[in-house]
């Protein structure tokens, strides 16, 4: 087993006279046995990156290394990887058993050896009684298990996933996630998982890599990405409901800093050194806070003035929508909360406030 090193990976597409930079100099290392998820919105370059690692797309520049093998120019057949596709892509004219055995057949394994491995994998994935069926007879979840089995029997060096659960419903996703984790643990190789679903990213990964517009914004374990985002983009992408943002004013003098939002004022306990150049003078600043850390006060003069719009009761919590001078704000409130379109005040919990540069989106504090 080995690690995966992606260095300065760039992919540029020519569209007539225009250049589309799909991937812009990505650096990423996936350690042996590590599960890294590549997340980002549609079109951000994550699938392109994955396909370059797989060998299905040729990068414009940069290198990809598996352990001590440089694979940048190796054809996909020789990379010894496994790839799970979004549309599953099982071979409809073969039985499940033959589907799973195909890779081994190409490699020249004997029939007994092939089928033995298939039986083993089928047992792990709990599809032993589907082996003689054709893929058309299986449900979506079972098909994905077969696809996993197809990869499992080959004992690959690197495991790649291309949004494999996008076509499945929420219940199936929840069912399949532990199966994926089980399989990748079993093989123990580095895993790169691409998805646009941040929940999948958070639940399955050792580290989350967030991509925006071809650039890697942050690569950290899920908890860090959640609590300590490097940029406004990361903060707004991770977490559901997403981070709420406000425009405020930061005034720093003599070691103490005060943050003003609307008519709320905080004294922040950060020194000017912590504030990355924002320590002196006054600056416009972007303030982010997660909806779980906003308190709704019945006194409209306390905090930010807000008019309640509607509630989305989820059972264990409620997502309440408010109209403020900053636009629509979502707050996570108690399950019993009922806004009744009244006037409220939104109070932000200081300790969870995150500050971002209003222009670059970089995290300030």
């Amino acid at each position, binding site marked *: 087993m080995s690690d995966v090193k992606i260095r300065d990976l760039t992919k540029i597409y020519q569209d007539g006279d225009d250049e589309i930079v799909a991937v812009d100099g990505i650096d990423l290392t996936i350690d042996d046995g590590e599960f890294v998820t590549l997340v980002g919105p549609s079109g951000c370059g994550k699938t392109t990156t994955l396909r370059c690692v797989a060998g299905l797309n040729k990068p414009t520049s940069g290198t990809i290394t598996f352990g001590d093998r440089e694979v940048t120019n190796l054809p996909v057949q020789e990379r010894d990887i496994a790839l799970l596709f979004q549309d599953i892509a099982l071979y409809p004219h073969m039985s499940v058993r033959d589907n799973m055995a195909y*890779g081994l057949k190409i490699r020249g394994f004997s029939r007994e050896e092939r089928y033995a491995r298939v039986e083993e994998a089928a047992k792990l994935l709990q599809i032993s009684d589907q082996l003689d069926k054709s893929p058309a007879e299986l449900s979506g979840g079972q098909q994905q298990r077969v696809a996993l089995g197809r990869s499992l029997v080959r004992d690959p060096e690197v495991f790649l996933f291309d949004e494999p659960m996008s076509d499945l419903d929420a219940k199936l996703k929840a069912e399949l996630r532990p199966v994926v984790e089980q399989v990748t643990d079993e093989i123990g190789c580095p895993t790169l998982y691409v998805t646009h679903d941040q929940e999948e990213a958070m639940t399955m990964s050792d580290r989350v890599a967030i991509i925006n517009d071809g650039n890697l914004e942050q690569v950290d374990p899920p908890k860090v990405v959640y609590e300590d985002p490097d940029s406004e983009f990361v903060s707004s992408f991770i977490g559901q409901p997403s981070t709420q943002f406000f425009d405020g004013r930061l005034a720093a003098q003599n070691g103490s800093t005060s943050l003003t939002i609307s008519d709320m004022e905080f004294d922040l306990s950060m020194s000017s050194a912590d504030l990355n150049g924002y320590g002196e003078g006054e600056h416009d600043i972007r303030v982010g806070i997660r909806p779980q850390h906003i308190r709704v006060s019945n006194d409209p003069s306390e905090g930010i003035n807000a008019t309640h719009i509607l509630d989305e009761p989820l059972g264990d919590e409620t997502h309440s929508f408010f109209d403020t001078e900053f636009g629509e704000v979502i707050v996570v409130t108690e399950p019993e909360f009922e806004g009744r379109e009244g006037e409220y005040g939104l109070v932000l919990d200081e300790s969870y406030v995150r500050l971002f540069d209003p222009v670059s989106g970089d995290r300030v504090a």
Partner: protein
Amino acid sequence: MSTDTPSDTDGIFGLGYRAEEKLFSRLKQISAAIFVVVGVFPIYWMLQASLTTRERASSSGISWFPTPETFTLENYEVLTNPDVALYVINSIVVTLGTIILVVLISLIAGYGLARFNMPQKENFARFLLLGYLFSPIVLGVPLYLIWQNLGLLNTRLGLIIALTAISMPFAVWLMWKYIQTIPEAMEESAWVAGASRWQGFRDIIIPQTQPAIIAAALFAFALAWNDFTFAQILLPANEASTFAPGVFRLIQRGYDIARVDVMAVSMAMTLPPLIFAYFMQSYLLKGFQIRSL
């Protein structure tokens, strides 16, 4: 206030909906019957003439139905006539050759068009179909001259090549569009498993293109088996001729070939396509079922 019984005067001609449905159903049946009669009658005519004795046919002109006295299979003996037998064999060889060549080439061309990009691909494809604008007879003279130069006149190979070329645009178009419906992810997953492009093509694409292959084969079969124009032009010598022009010549020369014999041979030559199409039907359907995954 009932809203589920249709009004009795809202249909066509002032009939109720039920009556309208019945009327259309009847009309459908009648038009189907007309088509059947018009289509099947010539074949029936052939069949019954081929089973009637020579005397009966020539004596009283038209016979509608072979009676027990006049029923005979002796007319089919004409198939053993060396000339006729040659025609039949030539037809079989040429048709088989055309089918094989058409399927092979269209598979590869269709795959190439479906999976690779080249400049002006769309225009090239449209250009392919332009060939069908021409009536075959227009191509007759140039074809004759070129074939003569190449030494392909009076050869079965020459006719096979010509018929293949005529079948190509449709077959290639068919394969191209059909292979396009097979997701690239399937081949990619085979490549990931270590299969080369050729292995992927052999193991993944070809098994799934069965319906298209059969359709192309049927098209080539129909074109080649029934071809008269090209066979007539490219096989001027009697020995090389296929069935269609061959029998035509026999009749023209007024040889001692009776009408009933012609009917017998024609009947014999009509059967293969019928049988072929009948059996291929089920493969065609099975293939479509697989792709519904």
